């Protein structure tokens, strides 16, 4: 079963953390280690980080089909900061991996305990939508 683990952030929290360099490196090392474990267990499908919200654009087709771009978002908007797609045996395993990611160390080495959204991946539109 494929699951997507989404790390969301508000605009105010986005940007390079102002943590001491050692804390930032510990955070990155923790995530690298998690990804390596998931690769070794064969559960990692992909993991990507996205650019910061200031580079996000909202695109809508105009009447003539030409794209209209906008870079203004409501303050309350959650931005996807990064994601993992994992292929696991059970939802519980996906939740356990999400908890590992959630517990990545922040400033001072304390676990961030950030929220990670977990959803099954369909591989296509859900059957009931076709």
């Amino acid at each position, binding site marked *: 079963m*494929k699951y*997507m*683990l989404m790390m969301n952030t508000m605009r105010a929290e986005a940007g*390079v953390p102002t943590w001491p360099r050692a804390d*930032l490196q510990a*955070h*990155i090392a923790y*995530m*690298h280690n998690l*990804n390596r474990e998931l690769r070794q267990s064969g559960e990692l499908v*992909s993991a*990507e*980080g*996205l*650019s910061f919200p200031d*580079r*996000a*654009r*909202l*695109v*809508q*087709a*105009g009447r003539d*089909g*030409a*794209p*209209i*771009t906008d870079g203004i978002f409501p303050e*309350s*908007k*959650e931005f*996807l900061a*990064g994601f993992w*797609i994992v292929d696991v045996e059970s*939802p519980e395993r996906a*939740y*356990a991996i*999400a*908890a*590992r*990611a*959630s*517990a990545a160390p922040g400033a001072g080495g304390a*676990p961030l*305990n*950030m*929220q*990670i*959204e*977990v*959803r*099954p*991946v*369909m*591989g296509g*539109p*859900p059957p*009931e*939508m*076709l």
Partner: protein
Amino acid sequence: MKYILLMSSTQAGVTGYHTWTQSDRDKHMQTLRTVIEELKGTGEFVATEGLAQPKDAKVVRGEKNGLPVTDGIFPESKEFLLGYWILDVATAERAYAIAGRISAAPGPGGVPTNMPIEVRQFADRATNAH
């Protein structure tokens, strides 16, 4: 340059989709399939996935003991990621043009949905924390 096109909606938007006629859904999905086929032809296609409905979403946090704490209650206003496309394109404008095509996919009665598509570049490897 790799870009991700994010299609998001609220629970209300997902409920609305379920009221479309079968014929309208078929035309919508056919347009999206055509876009994917074209992108495969140009070599710009990397990946696409659809996600399960918001009711199957869980939010996970790591607790002090490292165990996952799950919750499935979300505010009404929460935007859920419904699906995404990953592209490898020469310019940001090309990513916007493709997002415009997707935005213009037909909705009820064949009228373009013009739904907003968020476009973000992947983090540079040098600054990609994960």
